[in-house]
């Protein structure tokens, strides 16, 4: 039976990175806000999600088809958001 130790340590390292990113995004939020605040916060969230998908959800396994299925949902989501944005983000909003 293989020892679980290497896998446990690898997961712990990923967890450490996730907590580091959480501290980073919280620290950035305590700075005075600027135009970059939201892009930075979303970028950090995407990095965290990437780590979770790749390591915790095992997209690092040698199964390319799994990665295709995982990306399919986001591909459709990008179409949904992109096409909607062509309307809402190109006309004046009544205030």
């Amino acid at each position: 039976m293989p020892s679980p130790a290497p896998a446990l340590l690898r997961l712990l390292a990923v967890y450490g990175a996730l907590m580091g990113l959480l501290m980073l995004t919280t620290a950035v939020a305590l700075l005075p806000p600027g135009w970059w605040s939201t892009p930075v916060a979303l970028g950090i969230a995407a990095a965290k999600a990437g780590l979770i998908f790749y390591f915790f959800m095992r997209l690092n396994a040698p199964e390319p088809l799994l990665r295709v299925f995982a990306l399919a949902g986001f591909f459709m989501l990008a179409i949904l958001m992109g096409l909607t944005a062509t309307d809402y983000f190109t006309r004046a909003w009544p205030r």
Partner: protein
Amino acid sequence: MKAATAAPAAAPADTIGLPIAYADARQRGRANHLGMWTFIASEVLFFGGLFLAYFIYRHAYPAAFAAGSHRLNFWKGAVNTAVLLTSSLAMAWGDAFIKAGRRGALQACLAATVVIGVVFLALKGSEYREMYAQHLVPGLNFDARVGPQVELFIWMYFVMTGVHAVHMLVGLGLMGWLMVLNRRGRFNHARHAPIELFGLYWHFVDCIWVFLYPLLYLVGR
């Protein structure tokens, strides 16, 4: 139950005479995972619709969304993110342990995941209570002087965190069931697909929160 005599001689059959669907364990494992990932893709689009609505209204009412975000408990949101990431680690460790045949360690990890998940929901509940005390619950006691655009943000906060919390409750229920199965000795180093597949769900729900945290708590900060 029918005898296996009806099955064609060439194909191996299970106990009720149906041909076995998979050539080997690896193929079955891949089918399991693709099924789960298809479900997760549908969840991406389910939450995606909410995120889309959020982006449209935030684009329309940026000042109101920042004002609404400042009424949320920033620190509770941050702590809850850490809590949920920790529950994901416990879940991932459980998966690693059962792959090495460590049933007892898996049980401990599942129990830890449940406890940490309950801590998350308790914190969320205390936030909802705070909001109620401040007359900020749309449909129940929302203070009209705060304004309809801020109310829209707060409504989105309740819908998105509420749907997320329902996913957590479903996860906690499934986890209890997995703990019962594990007690009965149903998992070992070779047989652990339900643990792995449930882990995918739990981590995905974690991912949703990872996006909810900046979009709800960090607007205009």
